[in-house]
């Protein structure tokens, strides 16, 4: 079963708008929630991450909002730029130091100018 659900599958925004990507999970033992991005032809790379003790994490134009009660988290990309066009994956970690990471199916973001 899908342990980490991600939506939408694809998203198009105009330059300067805020893109919002959503994820939800089921397993309460997940303890770390990163977002990865992947540009065409490249490998996934870590963008930003949050632990459930926090409800918000910011890094420049990228912000994670986390709702532990509802088991949901989202990535907001403010002032979207064409260079942000990529596929974004949310993920959830279980297992501490011997962890495994479970990914969502991804959101393909296109930023139009």
């Amino acid at each position, binding site marked *: 079963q899908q342990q980490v659900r*991600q939506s939408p599958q694809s998203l198009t925004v105009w330059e300067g708008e805020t893109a919002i990507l959503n994820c939800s999970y089921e397993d309460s033992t997940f303890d770390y929630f990163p977002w*990865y991005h992947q540009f065409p032809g490249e490998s996934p*790379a*870590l963008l930003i991450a949050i632990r459930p003790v926090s409800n918000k994490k910011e890094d420049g134009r990228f912000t994670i909002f986390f709702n532990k009660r509802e088991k949901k988290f989202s990535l907001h990309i403010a002032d979207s730029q064409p260079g942000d066009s990529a596929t974004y994956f949310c993920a959830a*970690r279980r297992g501490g*130091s011997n962890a*495994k*990471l479970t*990914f969502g*199916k991804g959101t393909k973001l296109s930023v139009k100018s």
Partner: protein
Amino acid sequence: EAAVTQSPRNKVAVTGGKVTLSCNQTNNHNNMYWYRQDTGHGLRLIHYSYGAGSTEKGDIPDGYKASRPSQENFSLILELATPSQTSVYFCASGAWGANTGQLYFGEGSKLTVL
């Protein structure tokens, strides 16, 4: 700079043949992972390892074996390749702390099974 290298980068195999995908990391990370990426499915975990000599089943292990002979090397083995295993395979190494950690991915290996 952390480095994870995969070989081969491209492979065409025949149905029923044996395929070995190799991964080498110079990060000195204990944990290594094999994922496959397919459109509409994202990244799915096949096998992973906590250290030399250990392998664990991931979420979709059927049809795959893994081998971790050393800290640096982690292989994915398809004993009898099938067309459904046509995919892009990513190896990654990872180190985790209580508040941090990430996976470092290799460049990917594109496998086509005819």
